[in-house]
């Protein structure tokens, strides 16, 4: 157990150094305006880590006050993470103004629905509620990112390597956290030491991916797109849909000829 604790502490410090490196890169390359969400998320994460180090030294790691503070300090971290993920959506789709207008409404509705579901399905017992809500929120992140990239694929929009790496970082962390929380929920105290360790490892991998992402050329992430005149969509899309509807009706008649006899 002591071995795990030492290893976990070492990994924690390593993740702190890596996060600082990412923030340093963002500052040095003047990328804060391109990735405001990611910068804010990492800064808040670093602050949370510092706060927890002080708290654990002051009250000890098993103290209930330290535990509650750790969970409460997750709230600003989660908010900043939501901002960082919103950044990915913006970087991927905002160039396509029409699609972006549709996408943010769809994605926001999806996220709101999943978050409400997460809160209601968490239950009322403090210990379990926080853990369940946290796991559901991580699953929300995974579903949200997948929906975003399916949306992009549907419209033939290709993500730059930097955006892919950013998204993959969040997806990796959230996927592992969902599983990690589920195991803790079942095994409780027997799994606490491993839970900490298996929470830090994917986060390290994620920070590594973000570091790789912010080192990619900026032009790849922020290229412009020439849009078509507004009338083209309004003239062509209803016609496409009408023809598709006619075709479907004909296919339906072919599939079920009896159903369409007068």
């Amino acid at each position: 157990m002591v071995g795990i604790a030492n290893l976990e502490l070492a990994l924690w410090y390593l993740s702190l150094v890596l996060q600082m490196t990412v923030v340093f890169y963002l500052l040095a390359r003047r990328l804060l305006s391109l990735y405001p969400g990611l910068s804010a998320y990492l800064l808040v994460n670093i602050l949370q880590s510092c706060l927890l180090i002080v708290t654990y030294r002051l009250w000890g790691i098993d103290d209930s006050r330290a535990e509650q503070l750790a969970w409460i300090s997750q709230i600003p971290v989660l908010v900043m993470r939501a901002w960082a993920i919103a950044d990915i959506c913006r970087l991927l789709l905002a160039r396509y103004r029409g699609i972006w207008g549709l996408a943010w409404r769809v994605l926001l509705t999806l996220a709101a629905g999943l978050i409400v579901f997460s809160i209601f399905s968490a239950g009322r017992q403090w210990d379990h509620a926080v853990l369940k809500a946290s796991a559901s929120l991580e699953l929300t992140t995974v579903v949200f990112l997948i929906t975003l990239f399916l949306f992009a694929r549907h419209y033939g929009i290709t993500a730059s390597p930097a955006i892919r790496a950013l998204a993959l970082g969040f997806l990796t962390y959230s996927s592992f956290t969902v599983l990690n929380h589920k195991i803790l929920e079942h095994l409780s105290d027997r799994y606490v030491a491993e839970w900490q360790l298996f929470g830090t490892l994917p986060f390290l991998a994620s920070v590594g991916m973000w570091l790789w992402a912010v080192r990619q050329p900026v032009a790849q992430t922020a290229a412009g797109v020439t849009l078509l005149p507004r009338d083209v969509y309004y003239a062509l899309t209803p016609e496409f849909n009408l023809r598709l509807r006619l075709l479907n009706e004909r296919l339906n008649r072919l599939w079920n000829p009896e159903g369409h006899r007068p």
Partner: protein
Amino acid sequence: MSLLFLLPLLALVVFLVLVFFWSLRGTPTKRLDQFQAADFECAGRRHATHGPQICQALDNRDLQYLASAGGAHLARRVRRDRRQVVKNYLIALRGDFDQLLTLARAIAALSPEVVAVEELERLRLTVQFHLRCRIIYFRLLLGAATLPQISGVSDLVSHLAVRLETALQELGERAALAVELASSTDRRNLDAV
């Protein structure tokens, strides 16, 4: 310690991650920045125009004549071959429509405004179209559809061929014009820089 309780969630997460990687893969169709005016001009014209030949392939009188003149064996063989032709034609038709849909999506992506209802409607119709195409294909594959039923295909495709030919010509001309317009605006912007 048994981790069986984890299996359903693990399966769900693995599935989601696989879907994510699938969505990251290159799109099966062209990327938006690879579209050119020519794509709009020739969209959908390749297979849909072969409707009359498919009609001929499905004509019952042909098979009746073959059965009387060449025997039942020959008629069966020709019927099987022609069924295969119809299957291939359905696949090709689906390919044509996929191309059409890709263009529709490209237009939506490159438009400054889109209408959610139209987009959702197209998504619903696309799913419906692919589903029905597959059902008909499998019916043909299993031989469950009788020849009179299959001959409905000829009605479908011949009407569709005419519709597509004229509609796509109009759509293609307008879309090509729009793309030309967009690229000339782009060139003007570049000149200004």
